[in-house]
């Protein structure tokens, strides 16, 4: 259940020019979080920027006392967050939202991450490989370029299949990860009914995933990002439209949705 708590910063590691991994101490969140859940963080103490910022839970420490978020500096809030250091404390709401539903044993599992989409999928992957044959799991990792590619080495050493692509071809295959994913399931002639797909990434990419999932009637869960005010289901600001026209709240009805069910733009 969602709690409001004051979490001490344990570390804030710079992974790339603009990408940071922040480790926060919180037994409550670490013990109860599931892959797909997120936290809503008050980044500034002087209320500027005003609203909280949402971040997927990226990993939970083995001893379940700390958790990580992986974030990219894109504006004021993330800039402030990038300057947090051990000893600082952070006001956190979490864990929030629904989670990915783990696949049935017999399924072939595919994770498709674009850019920062790796954030929640890494938590999911770590759960999956505890229960699944590593070679039944394939990770599609996409980025704009070599410089922005994250976690390729780590993923390689995890033992599951890894397919890397960059928009400019500077490493791995060249092209959008969604297209690589589509080609791969065509080439290998996978039966869509036997697949379980999980995806996260930029809006445009997830839009492509919903198209693919709808066309192939694929079980595909996507984690959405949208501007959030309350983060607890109260304001109805963070909505996504379902096929039937009904609006759902990303914060508490999501952030994970069946790609066949939502209309993205």
């Amino acid at each position, binding site marked *: *259940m*969602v*709690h*409001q708590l004051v979490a001490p910063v344990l570390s804030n590691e710079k992974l790339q020019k603009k990408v940071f991994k922040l480790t926060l101490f919180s037994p409550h969140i670490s013990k109860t979080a599931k892959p797909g859940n997120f936290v809503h963080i*008050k980044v500034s103490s002087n*209320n*500027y*920027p*005003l*609203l*909280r910022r949402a971040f997927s839970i990226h990993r939970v420490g083995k001893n379940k006392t700390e958790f990580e978020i992986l974030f990219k500096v894109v504006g004021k809030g993330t800039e402030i967050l990038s300057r947090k250091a051990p000893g600082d404390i952070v*006001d956190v*709401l979490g864990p929030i939202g629904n989670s990915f539903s783990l696949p049935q044993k017999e399924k072939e599992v595919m994770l498709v991450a674009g850019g920062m989409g790796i954030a929640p999928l890494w938590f999911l992957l770590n759960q999956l490989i505890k229960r699944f044959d590593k070679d039944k799991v394939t990770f599609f990792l996409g980025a704009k370029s070599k410089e922005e590619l994250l976690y390729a080495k780590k993923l390689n050493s995890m033992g599951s299949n890894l397919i890397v692509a960059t928009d400019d071809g500077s490493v791995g295959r060249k092209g959008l990860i969604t297209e690589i994913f589509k080609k791969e399931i065509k080439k290998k002639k996978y039966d869509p009914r036997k697949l379980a797909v999980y995806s996260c990434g930029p809006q445009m990419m997830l839009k492509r995933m919903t198209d693919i999932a709808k066309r192939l009637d694929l079980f595909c869960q996507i984690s959405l990002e*949208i*501007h*959030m*005010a*309350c*983060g*607890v*289901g*109260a*304001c*109805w*600001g*963070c*909505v*996504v*439209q379902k096929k039937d*026209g*009904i*609006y759902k709240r990303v914060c*508490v009805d999501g952030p994970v949705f069946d790609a066949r069910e939502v209309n993205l733009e």
Partner: protein
Amino acid sequence: MRQKYDLSVNVAGVRFSNPVLVASGTFGYGEEYDALIDLSKLGGVITKSITLNPREGNPAPRTVETPSGMLNAIGLANLGVENFIKEKIPFLRKLETRIIVNVAGSTIGEYVEVVKRLSRCRGIDMLEINISCPNVEQGGLAFGSNPESAFACIKQIKDHTSYPIIAKLSPNVTDIVEVACAVKEAGADAVSLINTLIGMAIDTEKRKPILGNITGGLSGPAIKPVALAMVWKVAKAVNLPVIGIGGILNTQDALEFLLAGACMIQIGTANFVDPQTSVKIVNGLNGYLKEKRIKRITDLVGRLKIN
């Protein structure tokens, strides 16, 4: 044990344990914050605006942050009065705090119908009538933006309910005092102000308005000075309890509104910033009374010195 410092206020015959309410649309139906704060500590909870039929609301995006504020264009998304009575009232009824249901509609008839149905319910203490929503095509602001339609709307509602009525006023008018006078005339038991200011934000990359509804309502600390000026003007001019709303983040802000003449205050956007805000302000006001050795919070209301 009798409380030494008295935070309680009476508005239209209803006694509130303290002057801190949570504002409509920023606190869902109350239950969303149950896990995060002790609801019984609040003076009262005001629900999202309720309409006759369920409403899906506006297309996304519905919110965007602006300097020290935010725009919203939710569009009165709500589950409709019947579902509200069935699904939400039972929870609210159990709370040890006052319950104020906020009512909206596209026509006066719709407002009246919602009010009638709510009048058959147990557990409601007051109604707040939203004649100031900037985010719907019909109704809402249309009623609040001139004294005649505001009068007509409130009058009809008063004729059909025995609940005390708060009229929630819009700041998007030339003279809010005029509107306040009209709703007093129509029988309103109190006024609350302000609702949001009409605003807009543009995505220069896409060259499109950020909000799905193009414009939205501005709230948060950015609007506090505007809200305070309006509260002061209305409190001075109209002999009716005034409930202050707009950008209140902390005890200091709350005190400004009380001094300006508000007998109660509502916390809106600040619930998003820190869900504890309202409870912190209740405690903060209590601390202030102690520190200054003021017996009753009502002794502060309108005590602004003008030389």
